[in-house]
C-alpha cells in the first residue's frame, strides 16, 4: 500500500508533509513497561522514516517505519541503552536515518552557522556603533576640513 504522492501534485507547501497520512504507533507495538515505552517513543521521534518525506518513524505508518519501531523496542527490551540502540540503527541504515545530524566535521558548518553568525553580527554591530560614535561626539569635521586644519596647525 504505497501512499507516495506523485510529484506533480506537489502544489502546496504542506502537501509534502501529508505524504503517507500518519497513523504512527499501533496498539500491538506498545511495550508493557511504560518507562521502556516512553524511551522507545523518544527514540522514535529522532529516527527518520526512510521512505517518507521528512517524517519520523513515530509519525509514519509506512511499513518500514513500523519495522524500525519494532526494532527499537526489541533492542530496548534486550537491555540496550538509548545510545546503543541509536548506534545499532545507524550502523544498519546510515546517518540518513538520524533526524538530528551528528556533531561531526562534515556537519560543522551546519551546526556552527547559527553561533558564528550571531557572533559575527554582534561584532559587526558593536564595531559599527564604535566607529560612528566618535565622529558624532567629538567633531563634525569632514576629512577635507581635517586636512585643512592640520595644515593650518602645521604652518
Amino acid at each position, binding site marked *: 500500500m504505497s501512499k507516495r504522492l506523485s510529484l506533480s501534485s506537489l502544489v502546496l507547501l504542506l502537501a509534502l508533509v501529508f505524504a503517507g497520512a500518519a*497513523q504512527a504507533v499501533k496498539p500491538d507495538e506498545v511495550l508493557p513497561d511504560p518507562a521502556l515505552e516512553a524511551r522507545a517513543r523518544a527514540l522514535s521521534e529522532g529516527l527518520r522514516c526512510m521512505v517518507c518525506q521528512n517524517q519520523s518513524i513515530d509519525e509514519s505508518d509506512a511499513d518500514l517505519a513500523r519495522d524500525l519501531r519494532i526494532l527499537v523496542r526489541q533492542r530496548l527490551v534486550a537491555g540496550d541503552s538509548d545510545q546503543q540502540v541509536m548506534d545499532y540503527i545507524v550502523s544498519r541504515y546510515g546517518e540518513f536515518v538520524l533526524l538530528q545530524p551528528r556533531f561531526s566535521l562534515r556537519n560543522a558548518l551546519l551546526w556552527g552557522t547559527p553561533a558564528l553568525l550571531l557572533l559575527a553580527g554582534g561584532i559587526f554591530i558593536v564595531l559599527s556603533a564604535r566607529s560612528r560614535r566618535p565622529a558624532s561626539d567629538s567633531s563634525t569635521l569632514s576629512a577635507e576640513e581635517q586636512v585643512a586644519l592640520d595644515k593650518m596647525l602645521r604652518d
Partner: protein
Amino acid sequence: MVETGHFALVLAFALSLVQMLVPLVGARAGNQRLMAVGGPVAVTGFALTALSFTALATAYAGSDFSVASVWENSHSLQPLIYKITGTWGNHEGSMLLWVLILTFFGALVAVFGNNLPATLKANVLAVQGMIGAAFFLFILATSNPFIRLNPAPIEGRDLNPILQDLGLAVHPPLLYLGYVGFSICFSFSVAALIEGRIDASWARWVRPWTLVAWMFLTGGIAMGSYWAYYELGWGGFWFWDPVENASFMPWLAGTALLHSAIVMEKRSALKIWTLLLAILTFSLSLLGTFLVRSGVLTSVHAFATDPARGVFILCILTLFIGGSLTLFALRASRLTAGGLFHPISREGALVLNNLFLTTATATVLVGTLYPLALEAITGGKISVGAPFFDLTFGPLMLPLLAIVPFGPLLAWKRGDVLAASQRLMAAFALALAAMLVTGLFIDGASVFAALGVGLAVWLVAGALTDLAVKSGVGSVAPTVMLRRFAGLPRSVFGTTLAHLGLGLTLLGIVGTLSFGTEKILTMRPGETVELSGHTLRFEGLYPQKGPNFTEDRGRFLLISEGNADGEITSAKRFYPVRQTVTTESGIRTLGLSQLYLSLGDAGNDGSVVVRLWWKPLVTLIWGGGLVMMAGAAMSLADRRLRVGAPSRRRKPAAAAVSASPT
C-alpha cells in the same frame, strides 16, 4: 474561453516586457511620457492575467478535460468548491495564481502611487515588470496550464484527496499574497538602488507594504499549520519540513524587515540595512518558490532527471538575487547612512531584534539547504529534522522573546533600561508567578514547560504593560487615562496586539507539547475510554458514501459528568480514483483546548484502532496568529500610514512621541 485565457496570458507577458523596459528608459532619460506608460500597462497586465486566471478557473469549474491540467487534477464528481479551488491545487495553476497576485500588487502601485516621485514609481513598476516577465515566461515555456488534449478524455484523474479540503481555498492564496507582497518591497529597494537615493516617500511606502505582506504570510502559515494539524491525523502542527521552512524563512526575514522599517521611517536610521533586508526577504520568497516548484527537495536526483522547470527557476533566482545584490554592492555606498542612536534605545532594541531574527532565518536556511548541498557535493545523505531546529532555532528565540517587552518601552535615540524594567515589574512578577505555579502545582511539568509558560505570560503581560504605560495608568486620573488610551496611535495597538499574539502562540505551543496526553488503543463498540478527565464511548463504525469517496465513520459519544455531551466522529476515507486513503480526524474544542481523535485500521470484529489526544490550549497557537494579523491590520489603519495622506503625518507622530516614556 480556454484559448482566450491562453492568449491573454501571452499578451500579459508581452505587456510585462513593455512594463520592464519603457518606464526604466523613461526614468533614465527623464522622459515623463515614457515613465507614465508604466501605470496603465501594469493595470492592463493585471486585467489580462485576471482574465487568463478566470478562463482556467472556468475550465476547472466546468470539468473541461480537454485541458491537460484539468484532466490531471480534477474529476467530474468533485464538489464544485473543490473543482474551483483545484485551479491552484496543481503546479501550473498555482504559478498562474502567483503571477495574478504579482500583477495585482503592481496594479495597486500604479493606481495608488500618484504621490510617489515619478521616477521612483517608474522604476518600481519596471522592476515589477521584470519579475512578471520572468515568471510569465516560466509559465508559458515550462508550465503552461492551457495545453489541450486531443482527443479529450472522458473523465479526469481527480484532485489529490488531501487537497480536497477548505484549507486549499484559503491557505495558498493567503500564502502567495504574503510571498508575492514582499516583491513590492523588493522593487522599491531595487528602484532606490537604481536611482541611488532613498527619500522620505520610499520609507513611507515600504513599511505599509511590508505590513500587508507580513499580515498575509502570517495568516497563510497559521492556516497551513491548522490544516496540517487536522488533516494529517496525528495532531502535529509544525514539522520543520523543508516546504514549511520555505514559507517560514520569508516570514522571519519579513518580521525583521517590519521592525527595521519602523526605525527607518521614524528615525531614518538603518536605511541601507532595511533595503538589504527587503531584497533578502523577497529573495527568500523566490527561494521558497524554487524549493517547492523544482522538485529538488524530494531528491537531488529527481531534480536532475527532469530539470526543465528547476533550472528555469534557478536561473530566475540567480538573476534576481544575484542582480539585486550586485546592484546593492555597487550602489549601497552612495546611499547616506541615517541618524545616530545610543545602543540602549528603541533603535538599539530593534537592532538586537534584527540580529536574532536574521540569525534565525539563516539557521533555518542552512538546515534546509545543507542536506541538499551535502548530497550534491559529496553524495552523502543526512537528515535535518525537528531535533536540529529545537537545538539551534530554540535557543535563538529565547533571548529574542525575552527582550520583546522592553523594545516598545524604550525611548528613541537614548533609552533607560532601568525605567523600562521598573515599568515591567508587574509583568515580570506575573510571569514569575506563572512559572512557579506551573512548575510546582502541575503534575509532570518539566523545567522547559515552566520556563515556556513564564515566557509566554511575560510576552502577554509585557505587551499590555506598554499599552498601560502609554495611556498613563497609575499616574493620571482615570478620565485622562481613558482619553489618552483612546488617543493612542493605532500603530501602538498594533504593536501590542502583535506581541500579545506571539505570547498566545507560545502559550499554545508550550501547553500542547508539555501537557498534552495521548492514548492509543483498540476499541469495540460500547467500550469507553477516559483521557484527562474526558470520557468517550465508541458507538460503532458506520459506512457512508460521499460524492467521490466512501468512508467508514466512527462515532464516539463524549460523556461529561455522566451526561452525554455531543458526538465526535472520525473517518477513514477512500478515494477510488486515486486509490488513496485519508484520515478525517474528529476534533472537539473545549474552551481553548481540543480533544483530538483519529481512526486507525479496523478489525474484522467491529473493533478499530483509536488514537486519542488531549491538546491543552492548542487553539491558542493559531489564535495567536490571528491576533498577530489583527495587530498588522491595526497598524495599517494608522493614519500615518494611510497612503495618499502624507501631509497628515506630522500630528500623530508627534502624539506618539509625547505619549511614549522618556
